[in-house]
């Protein structure tokens, strides 16, 4: 697409083919900042590219910011958890606003994030940092004491998460002190949280000029397995309450622009609990689902939300109306092999034949033995569905958990 030089010039931090494809056909100039292995590919396909290895921030961090500034880039957009603080550091320079770096650190450290939320009057569960196994056992006991459990009552579980990893990576559920022994020492320190009994969901919100421009509610059928958009009417009825929560979040975290992806629990009495928030696209391909359901491209929306040169009219015209403008419901299911030994990929006939089935990105197994999942691991690929009825979609996604894709 021909690029409009009067509009912003964005840097994409991290490598995502879906993102590049989408932004390439958008009217903004862009440059992909990615590790050196992407160089040949970018050359071959004429993708504007700047090599950079995103390791921990160090004394060379200014260098990339300067190079992007010289290049004329207006703003940097993070695609992955690991590039969020880089975006913060770079944007602090590009937009001459040092606070952006501090803000990005809040997004990167789950403990800091929760404290900040708490300070802003947002409800969060009980949480604490753990440095060793002893901390975990103490926390488990204390949480259950608080819940007035007697000895012998089944414990409420607690959740352990890495401070700075995306989504489900390194996420464990601990119910008994015995289970603590299974945690490898190298996973510490971790963040511990009490278990919130409720309906977990995620939100994707595009923010520009401090205002929400599009708010999507993603319904998890089973956490780590499946998600679909737009959500069922049962979840959508909380939309107003959710919007208020997000506005609070924006204020608390001082977010002027960009894209956020928070997770919440809503309890049976309608109370919202904040889980965490990320300043990058969700891992579970919700962007692709949104494009399928609404027709707009979520990455392009992100570019608009980040670009300081975006006009009010432009961004208003870009996004459709939530829920009513959706052509249907799009969902995806993450496949984990269910058997210990697998030899080939075999899409279940009932899945492939289903009216809602759309495509999959599964590949044949490389190894026959399936590594035992300790934490919520990484799925082997996604299967996509699209259809009219949100309840049918939900049941269909749930049903996939009982099927073997690898045999």
């Amino acid at each position, binding site marked *: 697409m021909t690029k409009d030089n009067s509009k912003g010039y964005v840097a994409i931090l991290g490598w995502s*083919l879906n993102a590049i494809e989408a932004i390439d056909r958008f009217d903004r100039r862009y440059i992909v900042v990615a590790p050196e292995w992407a160089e040949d590919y970018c050359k071959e*396909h004429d993708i504007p590219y700047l090599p950079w290895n995103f390791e921990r921030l160090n004394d060379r961090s200014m260098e990339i910011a300067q190079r992007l500034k010289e290049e004329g880039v207006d703003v940097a957009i993070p695609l992955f958890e690991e590039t969020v603080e880089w975006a913060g550091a770079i944007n602090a320079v590009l937009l001459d606003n040092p606070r952006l770096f501090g803000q990005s650190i809040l997004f990167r450290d789950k403990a800091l994030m929760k404290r900040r939320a708490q300070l802003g009057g947002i409800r969060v569960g009980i949480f604490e940092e753990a440095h060793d196994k002893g901390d975990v056992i103490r926390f488990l006991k204390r949480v259950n004491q608080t819940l007035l459990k007697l000895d012998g009552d089944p414990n409420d579980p607690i959740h352990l998460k890495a401070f700075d990893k995306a989504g489900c990576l390194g996420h464990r559920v601990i119910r008994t002190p015995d289970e603590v022994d299974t945690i490898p020492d190298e996973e510490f320190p971790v963040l511990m949280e009490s278990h919130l009994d409720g309906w977990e969901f995620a939100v994707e919100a595009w923010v520009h000029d401090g205002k929400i421009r599009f708010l999507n509610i993603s319904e998890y059928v089973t956490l780590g397995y499946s998600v679909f958009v737009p959500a069922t009417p049962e979840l959508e009825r909380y939309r107003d309450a959710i919007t208020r929560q997000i506005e609070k979040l924006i204020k608390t975290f001082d977010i002027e622009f960009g894209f956020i992806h928070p997770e919440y629990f809503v309890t049976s009495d309608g109370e919202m609990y904040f889980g965490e928030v990320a300043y990058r696209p969700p891992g579970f391909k919700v962007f692709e689902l949104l494009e399928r359901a609404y027709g707009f491209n979520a990455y392009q929306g992100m570019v608009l939300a980040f670009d300081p040169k975006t006009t009010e009219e432009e961004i208003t015209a870009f996004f459709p109306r939530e829920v009513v403008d959706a052509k249907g419901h799009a969902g995806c299911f993450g496949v984990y092999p269910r058997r210990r030994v697998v030899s080939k990929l075999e899409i279940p006939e009932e899945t492939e*034949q289903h009216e809602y089935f*759309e495509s999959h990105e599964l590949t044949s197994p490389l190894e026959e033995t399936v590594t035992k999942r300790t934490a919520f691991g990484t799925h082997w690929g996604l299967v996509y569905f699209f259809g009219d009825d949100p309840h049918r979609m939900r049941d269909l996604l749930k049903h996939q958990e009982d099927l073997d894709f690898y045999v």
Partner: protein
Amino acid sequence: MTTNDERSVNVSGSLEKLLDNLDEAVAILARTKDFAKPLKTGRVLTVARRVLMLEGGCAALEQRAPDIEAAGIFNGSDWAFPQILIPSLARHSLQSGTSETVVMEALSELRLLAVAHGTYLHAGISTEQAHHYLTQVLALNLELLFTPPSETERTQQGDLALLTRALYRHLAEGIGYEHVIDQLVDEIWRILQQRPIQVDSVKQMILQIATCRANPEIDLGNSGQGADRLISSLFGTTHGCREDPGLDAYLERLGSMDTAALQYEATGFARAMHDTGLVSPYHTVLLRHLLNHGEHLLAEAMGLSSTGRDCLLCYRELVHAMIDLGVHPQTSQAVYGLALLLERGILYQPPVAPALWRQVALPLSPYSQQRLILAFGNTPAPNARLMEGVLCMLGQPLGVGQGNNPTCQSARALSMWAYNDPDYLLQMVAWATRDDEIIMHFEGQPVSSRENLEGVAKGLPFDLDPVSLLVVPHLDRIYVEMGRRCVGRSEDPHRWINPEFHGWWAGRGFRIAVDVATGKLHQLDDFLRYFYASYHPYFNGNQPLIHPQPAGIAVTDSAARFIGWHAITLLRVSLDPQQVMRMYFYNPNNDSGQDWGDGVVVSTAGNGERFGEASLPFEDFVSRVYIFHYDPLEPGDPTQVETQYVHTVIDKIQRSWGRDRLPETGLQADDGQETVPG
């Protein structure tokens, strides 16, 4: 059939709704840049699969074929180049358990059907080629037309097996059922008239026809009558194996036959073999059996003329040794190769017989053995396979094919040596297969195939005859290295490579019709006059062509559009039965019968061609030549060539591959453009 009913409920959604979905998916794919297309093909394939399952779905996809292809669904795969698709491979795609592969193949075939119908003008493949390809694909998969899915197919493919049947019904209705078998039979005869060395795919097609005819559930009507001879050349060739009794039973029968009965068997097989160029496995059983029954019956079984018989008698032990090593039911074509080798009388050239003795005892390198086993299997042993290959190549020098590889130069060299310098070929075979290295010399410097690992072909080829399989990779590397050593010279490298690569007899005189720097036509008049003066008997003092000469042609498609440069061999020039002066040449392509457009249709039979030769009227041929060699000491007299000839050819060039290569100064013949007739 309950399962089917359930399915049709599940695969709900009217065709119309699905097509809307498909069109949207195709549009998204179309707007996606190349690098990201793989992300967007999944949805197209899923919807296409559903469309294919519905009544009218195939037609709808055929109609959308140009859009679907333009969207880039085939990008990055072989399907993107329909001209290189091999009919026999379609089967594997269609029987795949992966629905993406099946649907891709289905889309590709429906696209070709659109091309064959003339509704889709394709840049890579003509209407005739598409029709031809589909006929072959249908012929190779006749059972998809006539029989329901087998239990195995059903379990492996589920209702994909029904999808392929729906597809084939649509294809056959589009192409015409009657065409399939009759055209297939015609096609087989046309191929066989060129006497290729590799006949596996032909044999496979014949087997298909035989199976279809034997199946009472398949009604072929009146078609397929011409297949009798083909089928009988492989199965039930003679009285002794009329009902296809199996090799062991046949051997047993031979034991109880008297000389007269054996003679009867021998002539029967020989006649079938020389009729078709195909050898029945039973024939090999007979031949081995006859090793102990005197040379007369052996000669009879190979259908030898007096020349061949003489040769057999002179080199009796060698022939016995070669039969013993190389003739087995799995290597039956060795019989035909051997018969023709004897007929050629090349055993009388002093080095050939000893070189063949070396071949018989040749210890193959482990690498060569492994390659042969990978390509042809374990039985018979690799050295027997290679023996078959050597016999066939020496017997049918013009039957060498390049397979689906860009190695026309190497295939041409092998053919030329087998034709002109057989002991040199045997030397190359020995070096390549025993030592895993060939060293040639280029301008005094050695060029090793082991030190230079890069060839024109990217991977190792597998679709070749045993000799080519092992020797071509070496030749290919040497050819590329010679080219590398010419980098920086301002002229076309073939000027130097061809004589050094092919043999001393390739003329050192060299003419090219194209300016290397600009790609434009260049000194065309001069070029054509030299060609006429060197090769046309009216202008070269009626001198027949002595040695085969390498030449380069500009291949054009049936619309006379330029396709690419290609290597061929000039073999002879003479008047055909209609008193037309023709060039007879060898084309390393697997099928020489090609339509080059503008009325230039290469003939392979019926115009005085010998087996394996292609031919064209002289001026038609010249109009596609762009490189040739000649002997600078025997150049004929270029000034004697009548201007009218030159003009005729220039016109043909301008109407075909020269269309976009006209130099700015125009193409002027010596005596001015204004005298050009018509």
